[in-house]
């Protein structure tokens, strides 16, 4: 079986995998990073979104072997210790999650969205989250959270 090596949440990892192994299954089953979820099989729902080399992708639609040498960030790698990333904190503050299943993908997408558009309008947030389906919240509070999260990320960037 081929061996794949990558950096996940800052840690160098490797594993023997079948070529057909999806990145999400490598993360969940081999690395035990179960925060990344699988909610569909047609690349629509976005529960599996992680960052690969700095941009958001659907880890159910990428072979693990294709991530050879890549820098991968999952939801587990977003917070600094117990201190939530500003986007995570904003989701909590604005009740942008209920059952929590879509949440990791939603947060990872939101962070990527704000990276390319630091001050998104409500409409841009709604369109920017097109690839993430939530069945619980009706998106109302997610939109509020992303708006607040963007503000906090910008403030953090200015400070930092």
């Amino acid at each position: 079986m081929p061996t794949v090596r990558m950096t996940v949440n800052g840690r160098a990892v490797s594993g023997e995998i079948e070529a057909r192994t999806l990145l999400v299954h490598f993360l969940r089953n081999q690395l035990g990073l179960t925060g990344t979820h699988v909610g569909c099989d047609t690349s629509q729902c976005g529960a599996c979104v992680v960052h690969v080399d700095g941009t958001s992708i659907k880890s159910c639609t990428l072979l693990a072997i294709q991530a050879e040498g890549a820098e991968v960030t999952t939801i587990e790698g977003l917070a600094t210790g117990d201190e939530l990333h500003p986007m995570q904190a904003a989701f909590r503050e604005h009740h942008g999650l209920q059952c929590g299943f879509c949440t990791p993908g939603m947060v990872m997408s939101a962070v990527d969205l704000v990276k390319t558009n630091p001050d998104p309008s409500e409409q841009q947030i709604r369109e920017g989250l097109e690839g993430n389906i939530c069945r619980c919240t009706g998106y109302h509070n997610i939109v509020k959270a992303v708006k607040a999260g963007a503000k906090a990320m910008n403030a953090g960037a200015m400070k930092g």
Partner: protein
Amino acid sequence: MHNFNYHRPNNVADAVTALGGAGDGKIIAGGMTLVPTLKQRLAAPSDLIDLNGIADLKGIKAESDGITIGAMTRHAEVAASSLVKSAIPALAELAELIGDRQVRNRGTIGGSLANNDPAADYPAAILGLGATVRTNKREIAADDFFQGLFETALEEGEIITAVHFPKPEKAAYRKFAQPASRFALIGVFVAKTKGGIRVAVTGGGNGVFRATDIETALAANFTPAAAKGVKLDPADFNGDLHGTPEYRAALVSTMAARAVEAC
């Protein structure tokens, strides 16, 4: 999905060799259609040849009164490219409408063309702008490239390397998305080019095609009303849960009119 042998060549020649050596090899570019297809076990290639390691296939450059986009350039790069935005803004806007953010971060122009999904967006731009598809073997004019449902002029062992887009006088793309999949239920690309008006339609049937009736009407009178006034024959369109042939035919005129308005 079934298992397969995986190859990651560094150059096109090695990719062709790997493809030739495989029992039933398939090329993977962005994988946005192929991986779901493999997951559903609708295809079971013996070998996957991944083009993501070939640096030569990536990038956007200005070239001979237009732009050239490498086959492995992601949709997000095209959408964000200042080069594309200044030369052919309609192309950047179209790229921004493909799939969702994550699909755009991974999907490639070459993959989209080689797959030729009948509801994909890119084929409308390639045909609408009269672009040229470059391969490891030759150049293929857009009018010759698309050959029906998931069929292209590509031959065995032929790999798309880049697409050259001549700069149009003006152009715009308008898409009516299928509500569930967000693919084009109907997408219309309208361009005023050196060679005349070109109107390309995706989502309507067995692949992208030119709406010549609308082209004629717009050649005479380049206004939204002229496009809207053309009634297309529903018999030329397919129907499904989301749109009857009549609906699709009407949407072509509507989207064409809106594209003209945006030109």
